[in-house]
C-alpha cells in the first residue's frame, strides 16, 4: 500500500559550505526551516523536488522531509534527524543554533 502523503518541506545541502538549506516560498534557498515552504500537495512537492534536482550549481542531495505547520513561526521538521539538521548537533552548541 502506498504511504499516505504527509506535509513536508524540501531540503538539501548548500554546494559550497554544505550547510542545510530549505526551499522558501519564493523559490530561493533559505537556511531557516521556519522560512521554508510547507508542501501540503504531493504533486507540487514532487514537481519542486524535480526542479531542485536540476539545481546542481547551488545545492546537493535535495529531498522531501516531513514537517508540521508549526503555527505562526513556520514549518517545523518532524523526525529527530531533521530536527538535528535544523538546529545543529546536540552534544554542544556549535552548529546552526550557535548562529541564531
Amino acid at each position, binding site marked *: 500500500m502506498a504511504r499516505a502523503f504527509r506535509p513536508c518541506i524540501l531540503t538539501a*545541502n548548500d*554546494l*559550497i*559550505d*554544505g*550547510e*542545510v538549506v530549505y526551499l522558501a516560498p519564493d523559490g530561493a534557498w533559505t537556511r531557516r526551516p521556519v522560512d521554508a515552504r510547507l508542501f501540503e500537495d504531493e504533486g507540487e512537492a514532487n514537481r519542486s523536488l524535480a526542479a531542485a534536482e536540476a539545481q*546542481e*550549481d547551488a545545492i*546537493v*542531495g535535495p529531498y522531501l522531509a516531513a514537517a508540521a505547520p508549526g503555527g505562526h513561526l513556520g514549518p517545523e521538521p*518532524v*523526525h*529527530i*534527524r531533521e530536527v*538535528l*539538521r535544523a538546529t*545543529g*548537533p*546536540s*552534544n*554542544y552548541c*556549535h*552548529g*546552526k543554533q550557535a548562529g541564531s
Partner: protein
Amino acid sequence: MYRYDSFDREFVRSRVAQFRQQVERRIDGSLTEEEFKPLRLMNGLYLQLHAYMLRVAIPYGTLDSRQMRQLAHIAERWDKGYGHFTTRQNIQFNWPRLKDVPDILDALADVEMHAIQTSGNCVRNITADHFAGAAADEIADPRPTAELLRQWSTDHPEFAFLPRKFKIAVSGSPVDRAVTRAHDIGLRMIRNGVGETGYEVSIGGGLGRTPVIGSVVRDFLPVADLLPYVESILQVYNAIGRRDNIYKARIKITVREHGIDAFRERVEQRFRIQHKAFTSAHQALLKRISAMFAAPAFIEAPTGAFDAALARDPVFRSFVDTNLHPHRNPQYAIVTISLKAHGATPGDATAEQMRVIADLAERYGHDEIRISHEQNCILPHVHKRDVPAVHAALREADLATSNVGLASDIIACPGMDYCNLATARSIPIAQDIATRMKERGDERQVGDLKIKISGCINACGHHHVGHIGILGLDRAGVENYQITLGGDGTETAALGERVGPGFAADDVVPAVERLIDTYLVLRSDEDEAFLATYRRVGMQPFKAALYPDTVLAAGR
C-alpha cells in the same frame, strides 16, 4: 618516524592539484554531483548532515608535534576550532567549506599528511597498536609493517575498486590493542618455535551489520612473505567477493560463503604464484622503513621526582593508576591523554588542546604522539621524572581526566549528531553515562569496563566488542538503544550478546547503572573485572537486572 621521500611528496601534491581542479569543475558546473561524488570520496571528503566532513588519515596513529600543530591550524583556520579523532586512527573535520578543501589538503601535504583512501572501496588507513614502539610487552614495532602496507596499498591500481572497503590492522604485541580480529585482515606479530618473528594472519573479521570475529588463515607468516601473501588475499577477494549486494560484499561474507579452508586454499594457490613475482625490493624497502622507526635516544635520569609526586599527590596517583602504561624502558612511561572528560564529546580535541599535546610531545616526549582507536591521545615516550610536569600541564588544559579504561572512557561514533548514515545519536548517550559515572564517584571501584556506542548498525563505535555495547536504532522515528554484553576486542576477542529489547534514550543510563550495580554485587572480588564476571556468571543475572518484570514472569 617515517619521512616522505620525493615520490611520496610528488604523489600527494599531484593528488591535491588534481582535486583542486575537480573542485573548481564541480563549482563551475562542469562536473555533476554524480560525477564529483566518487572523486571527493577518494580524497576523504564526505557530505554529512550539517556540512562537508574531511577525514584525514593518521597512518598507524602516529604523529609528531609539527603535524599536530598543523591539525590545530586547520581546525582554526578552516573549521570550527576542533577536530574529532575517530575509531580508525583518523581525524575528522566536521565543517570545512568545499572551496577550502584543496587548501586544507595542501596544508596537510606540507606536513606529510593526506586524506587519500579514507573512504571508498579500497584499502583504508592501516591501523596499528597505539602503544607501538613503546610497550613493554611488544615483540616488534608494528609500524614498519603498517607503513610498508600503506605504500603498497596507496593508489594500487588492482585494488582501487574492490567489492567493498578493506581494513587492515597490525599489532606487534601478544596483547591485541588494535582489535585485529575485527578487521578484514588482522596481522599479529608473533614468534615461532625457533624465535623468528612473523605474523599470525586472520581474515574476514569485521563489525557492522554482520559482526564476525576473523579466522586465522595462516598461523605463521614469515616477515619476508608479507606483501605477496596479503596481495594474494586481496586478489582472491577481488575475484570472488560479491558485487551484487552491498551488504554481502565484505570479505567476511566471502569467507563465510566459501568457508575458511576453501578460501585459504585459493590464497595459498595464488601465493605460490605471487611469491615468485615479488622481488626482494620490498624487503629492502621494509629495512629502510624500519630504520626510520628506530627508538628515540632514551635518556638516563633518576626517577625520584615521579616517586615523590606519587607519594605526595593523590590526584597524580589517580592519573598514574589509569593513564600510564608500562614502557619498554623501565625509566619511561606511556602516557595516555584522555579525550573523554566527563560530559565532553569522546574524541574531540580543540585546537588549543592539540597545541598543548604537541608542546608536551616536543618537550617531554621525544616528539612522538599516537592516536588510539579508542579515541584518546598518547605520549608514548615520557621519562618518569617528567610525568609530574606533563600531568600539571594537562590539568591546565583540561586534559588530565584520569579515566583511561574505566566506564567513562567510552568509544562513541559521531552518530546522528553529525553522520548521514546514523539512525540514532551516540555522543549524548556517552556524555550522559560519563556524567553519571562522575556523579556516582565509583568508576575506579568498578574498574576496567569498556562501553562502546554506535549510532547505527555500521558499528563505527565498535559496540559489538564492548563489554557493554550500545547500538542506537530508529524505531518508528524514535531513538531506541539495544544493549549487548560480553564483547571483547582483544586477543580473547568475542562478540557481545544482545540482552533483550531496546531502551528509550532516557532509560539507557539507568540501564547501564543496573548492569554496573549487578556486577558489583556478583564479582568474586575487586580484581575480577566486569568481563570476567560476565564470563563466569553468564547473561541471566544481568538480564534479570535489566528486565526484572519479564524475567520474573517467565519464572512463574
